[in-house]
């Protein structure tokens, strides 16, 4: 059995770092594959392929309209990022928050929630920031580059967005808000209950 758990824990009440997103490894029962996540804030690795040449001249250049309405809307996150780096016009077109919102909600349906949207809209680049911060979480093979120091984040609340997939089918999509200031939270091991005690896990 391989569950694919995509989780995002988003800090809110933001006066802290602008686009902080906190993702913690969740304990995983049995062999469920859970994504352990990390913040992917500012890494300072230099771009390794900054070559400028190698452009084959093309006969047919697309009209921006076609690119915007028919192609960008069909790209996944990394490809949209590549498109943004091709030219200034495409960069402008690719920065449309709607495109990133679409990609984000398709990847993590749980963020389709008013409260989460409000938090994301305060990020410097909205859904694009959210996606780029959360993207490393999607790749299970990649080891986390940084571990999260939970104590350095002074947020008053955590929002956990969890989507669990089984064989590519979404089986659970939940958003939970957890306050982080009371003694109860500060003295207990980290734990977020996604399901209420009597709630059962329905398979679709």
């Amino acid at each position, binding site marked *: 059995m391989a569950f694919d758990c995509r989780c995002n824990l988003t800090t809110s009440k933001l006066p802290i770092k602008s686009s902080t997103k906190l993702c913690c490894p969740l304990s995983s029962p049995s062999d469920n594959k859970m994504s352990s996540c990390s913040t*992917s804030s500012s*890494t*300072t*690795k*230099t*771009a390794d*392929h*900054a*070559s*400028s040449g*190698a*452009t*084959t001249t*093309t*006969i*047919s*250049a*697309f*009209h921006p309209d*076609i*690119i915007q309405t*028919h*192609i960008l809307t*069909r*790209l*996944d*996150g*990394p*490809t949209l*990022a*590549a*498109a*943004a*780096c*091709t*030219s*200034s*016009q*495409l*960069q402008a077109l690719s920065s449309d928050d709607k495109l990133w919102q679409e990609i984000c909600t398709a990847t993590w349906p749980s963020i389709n929630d008013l409260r989460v949207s409000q938090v994301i809209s305060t990020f410097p680049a909205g859904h694009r920031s959210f996606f*780029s911060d959360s*993207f*490393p979480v999607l790749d299970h093979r*990649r080891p986390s580059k940084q571990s999260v120091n939970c104590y350095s984040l002074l947020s008053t609340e955590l929002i956990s967005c969890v989507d669990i997939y089984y064989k590519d089918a979404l089986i659970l999509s939940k958003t939970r808000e957890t306050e982080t200031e009371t003694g109860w939270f500060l003295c207990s091991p980290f734990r977020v209950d996604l399901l209420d005690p009597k709630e059962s896990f329905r398979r679709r």
Partner: protein
Amino acid sequence: MSSSIASSSSSSSSSSKKEKKISLKTSDGEVFEVEEPVAMQLEIVRSFFADNEDVTEQTVMPLPNVSTAAMHGILEYCRAHEEFRRRMPEAAPEEEVRAFEAGYVDRKSNEELKEMILAANYLNISKLLDFLTGVAAKRIENKSVEYVRAFFGVENDFTPEEEANLRREYEWAFEGVDED
């Protein structure tokens, strides 16, 4: 028997029975005689004939933005779909359609694909445009910036610093891209 799906022979007026044909002229001057139901999938043709009372069967409609090569590709697709529709008017045979479409684009280079996207957009064939742009999106998936730039046919107008900054911003996206 109608001609086979794969064949895109155009100007074979000899085999036509009573079927009404519509003449379409491409940018390089070739005239295609196209079966009416096939031609009507081209929205630009349909509205041209719907809006102009005085056109006759002899009218040759000019399509200055479509090359002969693109027209062959467009008609191959539209003929196949007309054939599917004729055989199964209620519901298209999904698997067959998928098999046809997969084989259909496999043979097209990126340049041919792009030319056909431009033609499908101009001719206003939304089904084909959706299909081809989906294929285009798949072709640039997980590719390098250079590949995507060449595919879109856009000019790199960034300064080296701007580009370096952008690539740093999007660094997360460029690990493990495919070879061009």
